[in-house]
């Protein structure tokens, strides 16, 4: 026993802050949130156990829940591929023999750092204003742009474009991945007269698969968690006509505007499960399309 303590004490001591954080700020709250999801709780009265009522209400009668899911999935399905394609395309352009790569890299990455800030969300509202920069530019080409933010058919696209604008970090990860592909593969293909697009599908894509996979998982999780920009651009409500009712915005309003803490906890758990399922699917299917070069080690 004494030896056990002596051997383990340093490790546990260094982990002490994390242990506290893990139990008090992660595990505890997750379990508490699970419990609350089976109750009605308004922060004034004690939580009252109502069994599965929150969940049955959510899935059978709550139209806004389904709307929020629809908006969020729509956003994820559009913004993640758009961002990744943009990131990969630019990374490939930057990868081959340009001297000024550092400057471009910096310019393309900057929006990713700024993108989460409220200032940018405010800016985005003005860019897509009926008389904003975007419509002015379109007008220049004789196109009458819609009133992006008050039209439920177009409002989501402003956020997709905001997501595309922030392609910087997957781009940097792709760049690192492209560096790892041996040049002689391309040289050999060149000598054989393999056309460029074929080099792309036969060399770049397969060898980059682990990196693409990594980016895809990360960006999907990120996209599900989008909050600040949607909150600011939709005036905190998901307007117009709930077309910007992101799942997180809905959850926030249920919890901190209407103080339906029990119901909001149930919403939170559904979000957790959705993200877990997506991550799991990605991992389980990865063995069919991701091949790691050093698999044998």
């Amino acid at each position: 026993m004494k030896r056990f303590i002596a051997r383990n004490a340093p490790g546990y001591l260094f982990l002490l802050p994390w242990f506290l954080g893990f139990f008090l700020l992660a595990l505890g709250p997750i379990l508490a949130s699970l419990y609350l999801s089976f109750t009605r709780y308004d922060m004034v009265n004690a939580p009252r156990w109502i069994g599965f009522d929150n969940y049955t209400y959510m899935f059978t009668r709550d139209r806004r829940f389904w709307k929020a899911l629809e908006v969020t999935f729509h956003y994820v399905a559009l913004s993640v591929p758009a961002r990744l394609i943009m990131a990969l395309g630019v990374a490939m352009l930057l990868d081959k023999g340009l001297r000024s790569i550092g400057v471009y890299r910096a310019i393309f990455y900057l929006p990713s750092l700024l993108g989460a800030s409220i200032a940018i969300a405010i800016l985005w509202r003005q860019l897509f204003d009926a008389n904003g920069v975007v419509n002015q530019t379109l007008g220049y080409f004789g196109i009458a742009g819609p009133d992006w933010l008050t039209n439920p058919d177009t409002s989501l696209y402003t956020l997709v474009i905001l997501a595309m604008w922030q392609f910087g970090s997957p781009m940097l990860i792709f760049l690192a991945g492209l560096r790892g592909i041996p040049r002689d593969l391309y040289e050999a293909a060149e000598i054989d007269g393999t056309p460029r697009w074929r080099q792309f599908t036969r060399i770049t894509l397969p060898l980059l698969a682990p990196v693409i996979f990594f980016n895809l998982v990360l960006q999907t999780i990120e996209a599900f968690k989008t909050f600040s920009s949607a909150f600011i651009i939709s005036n905190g409500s998901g307007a117009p006509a709930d077309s910007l009712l992101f799942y997180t915005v809905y959850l926030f309003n249920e919890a901190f505007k209407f103080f339906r803490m029990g119901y909001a906890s149930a919403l939170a758990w559904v979000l957790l499960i959705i993200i877990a399922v997506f991550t799991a699917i990605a991992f389980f299917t990865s063995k069919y399309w991701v091949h790691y070069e050093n698999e044998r080690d």
Partner: protein
Amino acid sequence: MELDEATRVAHAFMLKRKQQERNGRLLKHAFLLGVSFIMLYPLFWLLSASLKPENEIFGNLDLWPSTFKFDNYTAGWHALPQSFSVFYVNSAIVTILSVIGNLISCSFAAYAFARLRFTGRNFFFALMMMTLMIPYHVVLIPQYVQFLQLGWVDTYLPLVVPRFLASDTFFIFLMVQFFRQLPRELDEAAMIDGCSPFKIYWAIILPLSLPAMGTAAIFSMIWVWEDFLAPLIYLNDIKSYTVPLALRLFLDQEGQSAYGQMFAMSVLSLVPVVLFFLLFQKFIVRGIATSGMK
């Protein structure tokens, strides 16, 4: 004779290819410049709108204001019930404390995971990695209830204390990656010399890990500075607002007349981030490439 012909053809081929490559490079540069312009245009527009007289902000695409109106900055600074000096001090307090908390607690945990041996290490490491995936929204409500009962709402404690408990797990992961690359012989030699684990952490691991610590410090500074959700929930009194919350107030009192001021304050709120980016670009780029964060 025939050989000469062959070299001539080869030479011509090489020349043509070089020419093609040069053209390709020019085309690439033109394209990248175009993309750069589109990427930066919104930011330049914001800057220019912050300097324009109100009637010029909308309805023209010119980036150059007819007259530079710096009043937007001076008036904007005092446009809200509290001056922006208060908001900047608040943001600075939260940010500095959070960065310190992140660096200490995350490097402790990372040191334990990367360099120390103890029962259950792999299990706890797996747990830690799992918490990376958990959306903040899931823990938000119970945390709020917890902090409310402690009487911490409307203080900075809910924003700062979790950072001293390594709640930004991401940085643990980042540091573990880095610590693992340092040669083990260093620890072993120090151990033989009778150094305690803390001494090894303090005198060997930390000094060698300045790049990783720098990356973590920069990212946590930027993320905390921009953080919106947690302050939105925990800070109700305008005197304790951070800069992002203050910016949102401009939207609430949306009178047509305040646009210039709102843009001016938006620009100022981005200045620290841009400045950090310009100064520490290398850290940031390397940090992302090696660990693959957001």
